[in-house]
């Protein structure tokens, strides 16, 4: 057994996080792949974790009730479980049509 690999596998997993519109502008990135702690259970948990990463995230998620999320291209509520989602998106309320 490789000790380093075992430690990494136990604590984090990589997810692709994508941002759109003013959430993208405030975070300062269109997308990133982050190793997130495996003990983050819900979208709301992930948002709290992201907000601790810096001012851009803090500004983007200042009003957590406004920012919407999707797990693997499907709309999801803040209390939805992250499960094995590989791509998590954050964006403002939609204004298409």
């Amino acid at each position, binding site marked *: 057994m490789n000790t380093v690999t075992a430690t990494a596998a136990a604590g984090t997993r990589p997810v692709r996080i994508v941002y*759109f*519109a003013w959430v993208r502008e405030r975070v300062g990135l269109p997308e990133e792949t982050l190793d997130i702690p495996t003990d983050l259970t819900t979208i709301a948990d992930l948002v709290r974790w992201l907000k601790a990463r810096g001012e851009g995230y803090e500004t983007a998620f200042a009003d957590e009730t406004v920012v919407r999320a999707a797990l693997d291209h*499907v709309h999801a509520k803040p209390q939805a479980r992250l499960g094995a989602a590989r791509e998590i998106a954050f964006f*403002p309320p939609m*204004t*298409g*049509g």
Partner: protein
Amino acid sequence: MFSPLVRIQREDFSLQDEIDALSAGRADIGAVVSFTGLCRDEAGTLAALELEHYPGMAEAEIARVANEAASRWPLLGLVAIHRYGLVKPGEQIVLVLAASAHRRAAFEAADFMMDYLKTRAPFWKREHRADGTLGGWVEAKGEDDDAARRWE
């Protein structure tokens, strides 16, 4: 059963071409209802709308809404086309076509499609102003959420 046609594209579209494609070679359709959304100039203050979208999810979400419409009404065809990129005042942004044997199903399905498309399809509009400045992101309207809730 039919598969709804969903297209997300930068290019413009032709209403007549889409109706022709939908109805070609068949005589069971008695009604086609179309909705076309256009870019307003906002009393001359707007130079263009920039439409950002979430590739992959935009197609998937509109297809989910279209499949729901197909399960709720006796439709014979459904088309949804949404543009992205820069759209100028007077240009077309979105098209919905609903086809059925009788008009009521087509009217209701097209109305339903637009209400859900506005509140669920991952698109965001930003204004480019006529004075050359970049405007803000268009804010979502509560009335659009209310309209979508009519169908619950």
